[in-house]
């Protein structure tokens, strides 16, 4: 499971573009400016965290329209899993192929090999840089349920698909798509990536921040969680419940369909066997055997549809529900930091000016975080609605096709039988 990074990065300059996608009008420059942090302390920022485009114009050029694939200029595929065996470990690498027309990329095509660890690295970098953005989920490290081996074909394929989804979601995200680490992930050769990874802040410093952040949240929680985030929290609690249930149900349906498929495989041939000892019933029996076989194949297709379309989507949202809870917590922590400083202001006598300055920065930070989350939340909800709608519509369509195929084969069998009956009747009528 994706680790909840409760870490609050050193206050990154707030750079997230505001508002929901429908506010992406080219003439909203002024609103954009307000979003920029008054504190341009880039020095504090991690040299590899996203560089703020300093001009609003360049910001505008980077707006993305979610549901208009025609405007996409970055296409990523993940495929070709290959296994590597060393003395210490065995692991799989995937080919990550990128095609782009963006100017900031030196080339229009890239091909690199990445392993799961690299994806984990990318995700944690994005979380660090954007603590209150909804970073897409990665497939789990291990599968606990079901006896799926770590390197079974099924497991690798499921993982490959999820990894591709992960990258394309980042590519589609208005902010994350411009993240520098993301670019490096897509373009750097293996050795380049290793050295880049090493240059980041040490693991321990990050951990230290996590501890501090957790400590601060424990110290008192927050006093005034804004209404909108209360609602989000309530929503997510129930959503988490329901999506987990749907995950279980969908897997159970798959299992039942698979068991049905296995029984059907045995069912058809018995009729063929029977026809060997019934000379007058050969056509009828073989006809039934044939229909059952067709239904069996149709069931297999239906099963595949389920496992390729519905299950991965639902599972992704199960992971998303964890992520969202984490994002809400991180936002709370940022607010908690502010509130603790405000408390300190009222209690401490000395250093009031310094405190006031810090509070100012934190207020910005909180506002930034809130806006970022709000925007991303709306975006997430829209995506979720769309994804669920298509996944379930897909399921319905798949079932329709299944029943239509079965119907067609049984109807043609019936026609053939009744035609025979009529022929027999006719022949009996003849003198």
């Amino acid at each position, binding site marked *: 499971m994706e680790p909840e990074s409760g870490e609050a990065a050193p206050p990154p300059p707030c750079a997230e573009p505001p508002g929901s996608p429908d506010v992406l009008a080219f003439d909203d420059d002024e609103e954009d400016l307000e979003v920029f942090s008054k504190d341009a302390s880039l020095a504090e920022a991690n040299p590899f965290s996203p560089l703020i485009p300093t001009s609003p114009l360049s910001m505008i050029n980077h707006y993305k329209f979610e549901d208009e694939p025609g405007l996409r200029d970055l296409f990523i595929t993940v495929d070709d899993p290959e296994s590597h065996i060393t003395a210490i470990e065995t692991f799989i690498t995937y080919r990550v192929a990128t095609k782009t027309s963006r100017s900031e990329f030196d080339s229009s095509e890239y091909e690199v090999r990445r392993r799961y660890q690299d994806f984990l690295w990318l995700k944690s970098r994005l979380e660090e840089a954007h603590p209150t953005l909804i970073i897409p989920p990665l497939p789990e490290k291990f599968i606990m349920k079901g006896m799926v081996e770590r390197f079974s074909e099924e497991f690798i394929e499921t993982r490959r698909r999820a990894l591709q989804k992960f990258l394309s979601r980042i590519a589609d995200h208005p902010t994350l798509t411009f993240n520098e680490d993301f670019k490096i992930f897509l373009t750097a050769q293996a050795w380049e990536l290793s050295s880049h990874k090493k240059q980041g802040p040490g693991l321990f410093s990050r951990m230290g921040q996590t501890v501090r952040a957790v400590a601060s949240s424990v110290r008192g929680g927050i006093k005034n969680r804004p209404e909108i985030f209360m609602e989000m929290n*309530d*929503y997510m609690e*129930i*959503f988490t419940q*329901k999506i987990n*249930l*749907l995950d279980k*149900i969908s897997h*159970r*349906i798959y299992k*039942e*369909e698979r*068991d*049905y498929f296995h*029984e*059907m495989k*045995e*069912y058809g041939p*018995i*009729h063929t*066997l*029977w026809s060997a*000892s*019934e000379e*007058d*019933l050969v056509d*009828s*029996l073989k*006809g*039934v055997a044939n*229909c059952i076989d067709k*239904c069996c194949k149709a069931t297999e297709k239906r099963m595949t549809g389920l496992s390729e379309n519905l299950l991965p989507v639902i599972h992704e949202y199960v992971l998303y529900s964890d992520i969202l809870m984490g994002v809400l917590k991180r936002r709370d922590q940022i607010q908690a930091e502010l509130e603790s400083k405000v408390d300190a202001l009222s209690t401490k006598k000395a250093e009031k000016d310094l405190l006031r300055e810090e509070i100012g920065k934190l207020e910005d930070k909180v506002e930034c975080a809130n806006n970022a989350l709000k925007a991303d939340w709306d975006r997430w909800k829209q995506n979720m*609605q769309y994804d*669920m*709608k298509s996944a*379930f*519509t897909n*399921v*319905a*369509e798949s*079932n*329709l096709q*299944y*029943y*239509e195929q*079965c*119907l067609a084969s*049984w*109807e043609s*069998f*019936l026609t053939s*039988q*009744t035609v025979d009956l009529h022929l027999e009747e006719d022949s009996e009528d003849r003198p």
Partner: protein
Amino acid sequence: MERSREDGPEPPPLPPEEPAAEQRGRAAAMEDCLLKKIEISVSEAEKRTGRNAVNMQETYTAYLIETRAVESQTEGQCSPVDSLWRRYSEFELLRNYLLVTFPHIVVPPLPEKRAEFVWHKLSADNMDPDFVERRRIGLENFLLRVASHPILCQDKIFYSFLTQEGGWKEMVNETGFQLKLVLELKNPDKRFTELKHYSDELQSVISHLLRVRARVADRLYGVYKVHGNYGRVFSEWSAIEKEMGDGLQSAGHHMDVYSSSIDDILEEEEHYADQLKEYLFYAEALRAVCRKHELMQYDLEMAAQDLTSKKQQCEELATGTVRTFSLKGMTSKLFGQETPEQREAKIKVLEEQIHEGEEQLKSKNLEGRDFVKTAWADIERFKEQKNRDLKEALISYAVMQISMCKKGIQVWTNAKECFSKM
């Protein structure tokens, strides 16, 4: 002849030929069946584990048979209860013995060997308490019926089954009844041999089909029912969704409809299963007719053999030549010849027997030919009926499948519409 399925198809009983005295005795005995003397019950069932023939551990159920003498009540005295434990396979052995030993008797049937052909609602487990209880009752019924049958109840093997704990199995096997299961015929009518093979195949394939159909039904039930969970969760989820809510809610309703539609579908399929089951039992009836032919043919061949040997004996006596080695012939050579008068007498007796035998053989032959003629006419009729019935059954199965598909299409079309409104 009307046959109820519970009793199983059996050939009409033929009264055995017996001298008048015995017939009268038999009539008297009819009033005097075993049940008048003892009470029988199968009172308990118990799970046991043991090792089977191939030394593998197995679990089985043992049944307690209790017997008690029915005595005229003397001062409220209760006679002691004897009991012993038997398992199903021993009941089967007993019944097979009775079938072979009394081929002209309609032997009562045993309850089902396995909880076969049942799906989801009824347990398919032989250890299921309901099944065990039903079987206990069935086994008791079997014993009571045998005990109340005037002829069967007199059988010693049956009596020891009820009363003798150890060594019963050996006793049954010593009767050699298993050898009689397969009669060796010199000239069986090929059609009946084929018919026997056919009925074996029919029984085997229909059993297999019914078993798998039940499993398929079970799985189908599972698929439909799990979808019902969608209904509940969609409804709960729709409560927190503003735009998706309506679509989810109504889709959920259709999932409920889908899930509950399977009950009627499978109920209908049971009728189809019953139609096939009927022909499963018909297979037994066919086998019974074949067996009758076998018995008649066997009888005929034995009679013919007997006649041939008598004729031979006669010839030997008449001509004084010994064509085949016989102990009698040797001893007479060793211990002295018979007188011509003795020989004449013997020849006379033999000639009478030969004459009788030839008459009997003639009538047996006629009987046999008659039997074959009528039986085969009925078998032809049966074949036509079977073909019609099975074809119709398969068509009705197709109709059921079509109806199920159409229902499915409707539900999922509705669901799709709801999803598209999400």
